[in-house]
Structures are given as structure tokens and as C-alpha cells.
């Protein structure tokens, strides 16, 4: 039993890039293409890790520190994330704050690395990133607070294993609202449509992609892997709320959670194939909407 946190952590490390492949495959399917292999992200990482690098003369160590700090943040965050009904490697009251703030550190350094290049494009992306995340953060924390209220604890490792079908029967509508809010946060934080477009090569419309325009080689591999792991962490939290299946067998629970994450990735692919990116001016409204959904969940819980 005590091995599950370690196994789940290793599972996250190994299969996080797979989620990117699932999203891309789904999108290809919708577009009627054969698409990249599901394991393409692994090949990309392998290729990038074997490359040299080119740095801009404008940059300082801040630019080089960005990917390193970002990956370290998301690795610690993964160690705080419970999975499949088992607690996380590290769990304590208030760990959700450390998780949210570690993503804050990651963002701060990504933004500074982008500003370090002195490029107008990267400045533009960084500016949008801080705009959207300032609104996504309250939605994220409020959503987690609602789950905390339902389960009576504010440690991720107690909250998520404690969620089960009875919570859904008692507080179903509220949990559904929270899940909707967290889905919006999940899309925004992972730079997916309708907030950001990970595929476009038109810099003026990109946010995350444009911030890392100048990175290459191992640095870019760190960024890519960090992004995949962040998708895993936020996805694990979201699917942990949506599908809290408890069979009593750790292996089966983990397998179900894993399948749920793959399904979530496929759902992201469906969203990306079926709708366009929102106009940048509309995105704040969507995020404020997410804050309100979480707030509404509390109104239902407190009534």
C-alpha cells in the first residue's frame, strides 16, 4: 500500500508526454489525417536532449534559469499530487497552496526568461500570460477550496482519496460546477484552445509558445517535459474530482485514474478540434466566469 505514492509518481514521470500524443492523435482523427505517432513527444524530447544550443547575446542567466526552475517546480508539484485514490509522495495541510504557488514560480521565471530576450513577440506573450494567470489563480484556489469544504480537509492527499460516490450524491451540482471551473483553468494553464493555441506558428496569436520562442536544445526539452507534466498534474486533480472510483484495489484504482486521464486528453483534443481560439479580449471573461462558477459552487454548498 505504501508503495503506491512512489509508483504513481513514477507513472506520472513516464507517461506524462503520452498525453500530448493522445491530444494530437485525437485532433488528427477529427481532421481526417493519420497524424503523428502517439509517442511523438518522447522522440521530440530525445532529439532535443541531444542537441546543442544557441543563445541570444541580449540574455543573462535568467534566460537559462527559466526552464530549469520551471521543471523543478512542476516536479515538486507532481510529488504533491494524489492519484487514483492514493495519497501523494508529500502530503500535508495546505499543500494545495504550495502546489498553486509553485506554478506561480514556474510562470514568473518563464515570463522573466521571455522578457530577458528583449524580443517584442516574447514580451507580448509574457504580458498575456500574466494577464490570464492573474485571473486563473483565484478560480483554481476557489475550486480547490470548494473541494476542501466538501471533504473537510485542505490537504490534497486527504481531500482527493476521501472523495467518493457519496459526495457526488450529496453535493453533485456543486462538484459539477467546480469541475467545470477547473476544466477552464486546466485549459488556460496548459495553454490549450480556447485560451491559447499550441499549434499556430503565427506569433501574434500565441501566448505560451511565443514566450519560449528563443529556447532550444536541452532547455526546450525541459520546457516541453515540464508542460507535459503540468498537464498531467492538473489533469489528475480534475479527473480525481470527476471520477472518484474506489474499488478497494490500488492497482485497479490507479489504472482507472490513468484511463481517465487519457480520456481527458482525448476530450481536450475534441475541444481543440471543435472550436476556435477565443479573441484575446474575450479570454478574461471566460476566466472570470470560472471564478464565478467556483463561487456559485460555494453558494450551493452553503445554502
Amino acid at each position, binding site marked *: 500500500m505504501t508503495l503506491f505514492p512512489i509508483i504513481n509518481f513514477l507513472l506520472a514521470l513516464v507517461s506524462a508526454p503520452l498525453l500530448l500524443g493522445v491530444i494530437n492523435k485525437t485532433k488528427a482523427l477529427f481532421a481526417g489525417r493519420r497524424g503523428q505517432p502517439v509517442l511523438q513527444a518522447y522522440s521530440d524530447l530525445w532529439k532535443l536532449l541531444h542537441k546543442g544550443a544557441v543563445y541570444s547575446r541580449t540574455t543573462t542567466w535568467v534566460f537559462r534559469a527559466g526552464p530549469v526552475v520551471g521543471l523543478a517546480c512542476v516536479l515538486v508539484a507532481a510529488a504533491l499530487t494524489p492519484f487514483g485514490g492514493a495519497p501523494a509522495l508529500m502530503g500535508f495541510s*495546505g499543500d494545495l497552496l504550495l502546489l498553486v504557488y509553485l506554478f506561480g514560480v514556474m510562470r514568473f521565471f518563464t515570463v522573466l526568461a521571455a522578457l530577458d530576450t528583449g524580443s517584442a513577440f516574447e514580451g507580448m506573450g509574457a504580458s498575456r500570460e500574466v494577464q490570464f494567470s492573474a485571473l486563473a489563480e483565484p478560480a483554481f484556489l476557489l475550486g480547490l477550496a470548494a473541494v476542501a469544504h466538501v471533504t473537510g480537509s485542505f490537504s490534497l492527499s486527504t481531500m482527493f482519496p476521501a472523495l467518493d460516490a457519496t459526495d457526488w450524491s450529496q453535493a453533485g451540482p456543486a462538484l459539477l460546477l467546480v469541475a467545470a471551473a477547473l476544466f477552464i483553468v486546466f485549459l488556460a494553464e496548459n495553454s490549450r484552445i480556447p485560451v491559447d493555441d499550441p499549434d499556430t506558428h503565427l506569433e501574434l496569436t500565441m501566448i505560451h509558445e511565443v514566450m519560449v520562442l528563443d529556447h532550444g536544445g536541452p532547455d526546450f526539452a525541459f520546457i516541453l517535459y515540464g508542460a507535459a507534466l503540468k498537464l498531467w498534474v492538473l489533469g489528475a486533480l480534475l479527473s480525481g474530482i470527476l471520477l472518484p472510483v474506489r474499488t478497494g484495489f490500488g492497482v485497479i484504482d490507479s489504472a482507472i485514474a490513468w484511463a481517465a486521464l487519457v480520456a481527458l486528453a482525448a476530450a481536450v483534443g475534441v475541444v481543440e478540434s471543435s472550436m476556435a481560439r477565443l479573441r484575446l479580449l474575450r479570454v478574461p471573461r471566460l476566466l472570470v466566469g470560472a471564478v464565478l462558477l467556483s463561487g456559485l459552487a460555494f453558494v450551493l454548498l452553503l445554502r
Partner: protein
Amino acid sequence: MFLIVASLAVFSVAALFAVLPAHRPVWCVRAGIFGACVGAAAGLLAAVQGLFGGSIESMRIPWSIPGGELHLGMDPLSAFFLLPITGLGLLGAVYGAGYQRGGDAKKLGVGWFHYNVLLASMVTVVTARNAILFLIAWEVMALSSFFLVTHEHDKPQVRAAGWIYLVATHLGTAFLLALFVILGEKAGSYEFSAFAKAGASLSPGLAVAAFAFTLIGFGTKAGFLPLHVWLPEAHPAAPSHVSALMSGVMIKTGIYGLIRLLACLGAPPAWWGWCLLAVGLLSGVMGVLLALSQRDIKRLLAYCSVENIGVISLGLGVGYLGLSRGSTTMAALGFAGALLHVLNHAIFKGLLFLGAGSVLHGTGTGDMDLLGGLYKRMPWTGTTFLIGAASICGLPPLNGFVSEFLIYFGAFSGVVSTSSAAVVSGLVVITGLALIGGIASATFAKAFGGIFLGEPRSDQALHAHEANGLMRWPMVALAACCVLIGFLAPLAVRAVLPAVGMIVPVSSDALDAGIAPAMEPLGWITAGCAAFAALVALLALLRLRLLSGRTVGETGTWDCGYARPTARMQYTASSFGQPLMAVFAGLLGTGGTGTAPRGIFPAKASHTSETPDPFRSRFYDPLFLRTLGLLALFRGAQHGRVQMYVLYVALTLIAFLIFSLG
């Protein structure tokens, strides 16, 4: 007590030495600086002794002023506030010595006179146990800081800033005077200990008035919104080491006064907590939004102080709500978070103001849109500024995270409780802190990115020079404190607890039990931060290992095929902040002037945007203009003829005589 008296004596002697008419005024200035350092060091020792020694001392000397007594006391709460005052006072003096090196010694001497007086008055404010002595020290503090703000009084905008500050601080003091009269009448004495007995028996109406006067009187000094308007004017106008002292610690005397006097007003009802939460939310969110909108680095930092005072107020709100609910955990967490944030804010705001001073010193401008690329020219200032910026955003593993974590923790313990009021108060705090944190990150990414990263946007930035040694070390020391408190979170909280014990009226065992739920998580946070630091080191090594032996080239920034990018094409700090400001445009009222490009071949175009303080432009300016118009009616009585003034005095006296006889 000996150390406190010694430090006050050293400050007084040093102040006199600084303005001594000597042949070599440089030596007088040096004596002033040296005295400030020695006095502050003695005070620092006293603070450490008071905080950890655990004894409560006092010293009383009779005084001829009616109701007054030279009554100084030391308890953990005073000691806790003394810590940043003396610590930052010491570092500020060292920095100031480097910052003003080579200036006009006569003028500097006057500056160091006021610096010493300011330090002495702040020490007296937090140790005074008699309301009259407190008020006199409070007034001396206001006046000495006024003279420090107007140090460069040859500039009209500095004189205007000083004037606004003088009016604001005296309006605040007027409310304190009223408060002390209410309490003094009831108690029959002006001792704080007598106030504490009298405060609980005030009639309900008077109790509400007393709370309101405390909040307004001390809130003006602390910079609660909407009483903050003096802050963004006065702090940038002062020399940078004084700005650091004013923004880092002087405004905290307002928080000290609030806590000390609220403790005299009896058991806290729940609405105090709600009031402080509302004030904290308003100050925090509006403060950080206004900070984001500034172009001048020191104005940005001043508004950011309003934000942090808001965060402190949120913590106090959680604390007083906890007290009123009888929840020691919530109270201990709220107050511990608020007090630790007082110390943390003194550290990182002091650091950032010193950093801003180095930028001003090295380039001659604080306009972020004209700076850029300073990191390569000023690596010491840049690195320490980065640490300060990350701390003030509350990012782990630095100190800002620890205090915000405690306040969040208090709020979450409300959210998981069964009482609806506690849940709602927790939600207010969580939403507020999350929003404030997000916008603060944007603000400081803008400040650090705009000033230190990219390419220089002007000649001043291109020819910047690094701060000298005396300026460098105080910044390094403060940055080290940010890292240390971040990594030693459990110890820092233990150090705050004695001061919390002065506010939460329970035994120290009960207090320990109250804070216990947060102690284990704090240990985990330290572990998590250590893991994070180790991972950063490992990944950095891995990266070096991967790149060794491979080609690592250098080139210009990739600008999507554009061949000749210039520094002017960079995103400026203002354009960086604009999208987020646009979301809150309704609150900010940012205005712009300029000419848009017109036609197929546009001629010159320009754009300047400005965010005036909405409270000043929409509320205070009209109010004071109206008052001025009203007072103009009395102008006829002001004519400068002395005999007429004597007549006014005589008439007033006769009126009083008739009143008292009749």
C-alpha cells in the same frame, strides 16, 4: 530598558553632532551616520532581548506635562516592531552613507539630523506606555519624516509631496487625539494600562466611535485605502534610504498602534474582523492594481506598500474574527501571519527601495520605460532586486510565501469549518490573496523585466554604473534575510509567537496548541523548498553536462526573420502591464494623450498614458477645492494687522469668561 535608553541617547547626540557648525562638515555627517548605526544596533539588541528574553520591563520618570509621564515599556509586541525599525534603520544608514557620498555636507547634515530624530521617535512610539508621550513621539515622527521627504526642496514636486504628506498625517493625528480624549476621559489617566481597563466599559456608541477613530487615525499612517493618497507622493520624493525606512517600517507604526489600541477596547466583536477584511481587500486589490499602472519604480513600490498593508489587514481580520469566534487556531494563524508579514514586508520592501535607489543612482531615472538591460551593468543590484521581487509576490521558497501561507491557512481552517460566517470570511481572504498574488506577480515581472532585462532603452540605461560597496552590502544582507526566513519558516513562526501571545489572551500552552496545526505543514514546506532547491541544482548540473562538448552559439534575439530589431521595438514596461490594466479599466480610470498615426504615410505619432490616483482625482481634489472655496469666505479676517489679532484673542477670552460665569 538600558539598551533602549542608550539607543535613544545615542540618536539624540548623533542628531546634534550632525548639525554642529564645524569647519569640516563632512565629519559631522559621518558622526551622524555613525551614531545612527550605533543607536540602531543597540535598539536591535534590545529588540532581540525583548522578544526572546520573555521579560516585560518598564521605566517611569515623572514629567511636568499634565497627564504625561515618561513611561517606556518593553514587551514582546513592542520588541517585535522594534526589530524591523532598528534593523532597517541600521542598514538604511549604511546605504545612505554610500548613496549620498560626495553631496553637499551642510545639507546632508540636516538630513542625518532628521534621520536620527526619526529613528528615535519610532523607537519611542513603539515603547511608549503613556498616551501623551506616544502622541508627542508620533508628532515628532511625522515632522522629522516630513523634513526628510522635502530633503530636495528645490524641486516643486517634492514640496507638493511634502505638503500632501503634512496635511494627511495631521488629519490622522486629529482622530488619534479624539480617541485619546475619549479613553482618557473614561479612564481618568493617560496611561495605556488605564485605557485597557476603561475601554471595556465604554458605552456602545462610544465604543464604535473609538474603533472608527483608531482605524482612521492609525490607518492614515499605515496607508489603508482610501487614506493612502499621501503615500505614493511622499515615498518617491524622499531619498531612497529614507523611502525604504518610511515604506518598510514607518507605516508599520500604524499597524502597531492599531493592535495596541484595539487591545484596549475590550473583547473584539466579529464586525471588527469584517471591517478589517473589507479594508484589507480594498487596499490589497486597489493597491496592487495602482502599482501595476505606474511608470516610475518608486511610485510602483509605494503603491505596492498599500497592497501589503492590505495583506496585513486581511491577516488581522482573520485574527480578530478568530478571537470573536473563540477559535484560538484561527486567531493565532491570522495574527502570526499578519505580524510575520510586517517583518517580511519591511525586509523586502526595504530591499526593493534600496535597489530602486541604486537604479536611480546609477542611471538618473526611475522611469521604467526608459530603462532596460541593467542586469549586465548592475549584477549585484539586479540579483538582490530579483530576490526581493520574488519574495514580495509571495513565491516559495522565500519569506513572503511563509506569511501569506499562514494567513491562507487561517482562512482555509475557516473554510473547512461548519460555521457559514467562517466559511465566507475564508473565501473572501482566499479570493483576495489569490487575486492580489497574481497581479503582484505581473507587477514585479514588469518592474524587474522592464528595468533589468532586455536591451537598454535610453542612453542613461546604456551608461548605468553599479552601486558602490556601502550601498551593496545592505541589499545583500536584506536578500539573505528573505532566503533565510523562507527556508527556516518554522523557526520564524516560533519567533513571532510571543508577540502573538500579547494579542490573543490565552496561556502560552494554549497558544502553542492553537498554532500546532500549522507547524507540521511548515516543516513540510521547508522540506518541499529544500527538495525544490536540490532539484534546481540537479537540473542545472544536468543541463551543463548535456551541453558540455556540444556547440553552444551566440547570436541576436530571434525576431521572426526581422533583420534589424532595435531596443525601441521591445515591449516596454507600460505595454507589458496594459492588458491586465484593461481588464480593470473601470476601477483605474487610466487616461492617455497623444496623436494617433493617420493616413497611408503617417507623420509622427505619440502616445502617453497616465493613471492618476482615482481616489485623489475623484474624491480628495474636489473635496479640498470645495473646502478651500468655503474657507475663502474667512479671508477677509486675515489681513496681517497685529492689533486686530490681539482683539480677536481678547474677544474670545471674554466670550469664554461669560460662558463659564453663566
